[in-house]
């Protein structure tokens, strides 16, 4: 992504803060810390050295040891009171929102809670984001077992209830805990399926760490199991559009009467269940393949419930 003037200004202020906190530092280290070339770091230190308070007399600018700078060492002599700026409202909302969401999804690393608390404390007058608990709950013991297996590079035995309500016992090799749109998943190699899987944490009923070492490393393609198989077009009465709003891949266009939903189908049974939940508002479903799954579900419900 293209670097903006803001990125450069934040970085220059950051270099001043770094030197204030850590003392004389090789330009090479400074460049590595801020992810730029040494030349760029040196240029920006020179720019800082010609910035300051009007009318910019020598003792009114930020001062560095420029001889040392030529030798590759950054030494800040006078910061003119300039330092890194506290977080803006948007910055605080973006960072605390993501951390809060990962904590709620059960996929935050150790220490995330303390980092979140410290950012909030430092926020001052900015409006923090409120992160509310979602409907899914992940057992703390399940989380602990999975992170232990990840850290130790071993397999875990889990009891898993899939989206079609089938309960299976599986042995997985967990690699990473991820939050996708606020829902927690574990990325793993599943020995039963002999393939990579992304399993929803709230569907794991039990988890135990095994002695057995992992045989497969993490997949090169994260999110693989969430790839869409085909595209569907669903038209519903506009009042029922809410039923599709939480589907990340869905685009919804609305006219005066109806809403047209374009979505990628990753799991036909899951999609059919979602359509059933708003069935009286359905106008049309394409393609025929999805209609067939919908019909099968409806028949099964009527057979059980009685028609």
């Amino acid at each position, binding site marked *: 992504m293209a670097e903006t003037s803001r990125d450069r200004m934040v970085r220059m*202020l*950051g270099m001043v*803060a*770094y030197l204030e906190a850590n003392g004389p530092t090789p330009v090479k*280290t400074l460049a590595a*810390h801020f992810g730029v070339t040494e030349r760029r770091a040196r240029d920006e230190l020179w*720019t800082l050295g010609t910035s*300051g*308070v009007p*009318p910019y007399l020598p003792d009114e600018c930020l001062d560095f040891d420029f001889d040392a700078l030529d030798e590759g060492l950054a030494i800040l002599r006078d910061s*003119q009171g300039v330092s*890194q700026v506290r*977080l*803006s*409202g948007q*910055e605080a*909302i973006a*960072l605390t*929102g*993501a951390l809060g*969401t*990962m904590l709620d999804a059960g*996929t*935050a*690393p150790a*220490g995330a809670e303390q*980092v979140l608390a*410290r950012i909030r404390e430092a926020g001052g007058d900015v*409006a923090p*984001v*409120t*992160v*509310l*608990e979602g409907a*899914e709950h992940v057992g703390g013991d399940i989380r602990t077992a999975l992170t232990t297996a990840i850290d130790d590079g071993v397999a875990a035995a889990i009891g898993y209830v899939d989206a079609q309500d089938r309960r299976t016992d599986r042995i997985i090799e967990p690699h990473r805990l991820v*939050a996708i749109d*606020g829902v927690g998943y574990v990325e793993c190699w599943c020995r039963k399926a002999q393939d990579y899987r992304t399993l929803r944490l709230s569907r794991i009923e039990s988890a135990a760490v095994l002695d057995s070492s992992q045989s497969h490393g993490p997949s090169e393609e*994260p999110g693989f199991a969430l790839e869409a198989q085909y595209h569907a077009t669903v038209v519903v009465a*506009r*009042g029922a*559009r809410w039923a599709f709003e939480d589907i*990340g891949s869905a685009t*919804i266009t*609305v006219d005066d009467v109806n809403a047209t939903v374009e979505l990628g189908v990753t799991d036909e*049974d899951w999609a059919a*269940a979602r*359509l059933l*939940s708003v*069935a009286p508002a*359905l106008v049309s*479903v394409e393609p025929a393949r999805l*209609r067939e799954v919908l019909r*099968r579900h*409806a028949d099964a*419900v*009527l*057979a059980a*419930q*009685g*028609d």
Partner: protein
Amino acid sequence: MSDVSAEQRRLNLMIALSRTRHRLTREQIRARVDGYDTVPAGATEEERQRADASFQRMFERDKDELRSMGLPLRTITDPVHQDDLGYRIDGDTAMPALDLSLQDAAVLALAVEYWAGKPLEADARHGFAKLISAIGHGESPSLPFGGMSTTAGADATSTLAAAVSDRQVVRFEYASASSPTRRRTVQPWGIVMRAGVDYLVGWDQDAEAVRTFRLGRVQGSVKTVGEPEAFERPAALPLGGLEESAPDQIAVVAVRPEAGHALRRRGEPVGAEDGWELFQVAYRHADLLRAEVLALQGGAKVMEPGELAESVKEHARAAKEVARG
């Protein structure tokens, strides 16, 4: 044009406005702060006007930029000459010492990754760069965690986040579930996130009431109206319907053995009949329980209440009708 870069000019503006005892007017800023073009001697009237307009535009952009960086840049009116505006940066603007570790930096990097490809990514990236500035350099640990956001509404979230912290009124087109698309003018009070869905809570100026807006339903762009610091935010954000409330109704659901695991976990067993196991399940929203039963593909049926059982059937019949194509 001056050869001073935009970032250096803004740095100089930030320093000048932080150091001034009273305030600096636009003309003082233009004359003193390094990076702004002054009118060249002997310029024609037309050249002078063009230079003036270019300075005003540049200064407006710089002012907005410093504000969105989190600097409290205030407009100070002269008590004698009211239309003569001046500016100053007030108060303590420095990032407090947070004493963060390299492990903390790795945790924060995940928060930036979460917004990858979304408008909040830039805000997260700048915030990250600010927070890690003073951490001594070292190898950051690579953590086996990750995240991403794919939901709609993140475009509006970034603009609204700025408006919430600047306390600036916003206007946007909004399509609620029940009413047609309408323009709303709102004092944005706070952003709420739940399970990956973003909401705005604020004061709807036309309805004269507190309202919650689901940001995925905002159509088009969000525009700010009027000046910053236009209203006070309430100390506690009213969450209204977003707050989960306790279930208040009871259903009896029959499930097949080895089916309905989620219902079994929540419910109380109350017997068995004809190959079905019965569970009492507490619920608040009938539509959610109905959706759960419908999703079990005949692995469950509603025994009580009768209306709920009837509406399960109604849904299945309607689905069959549509499935005919």
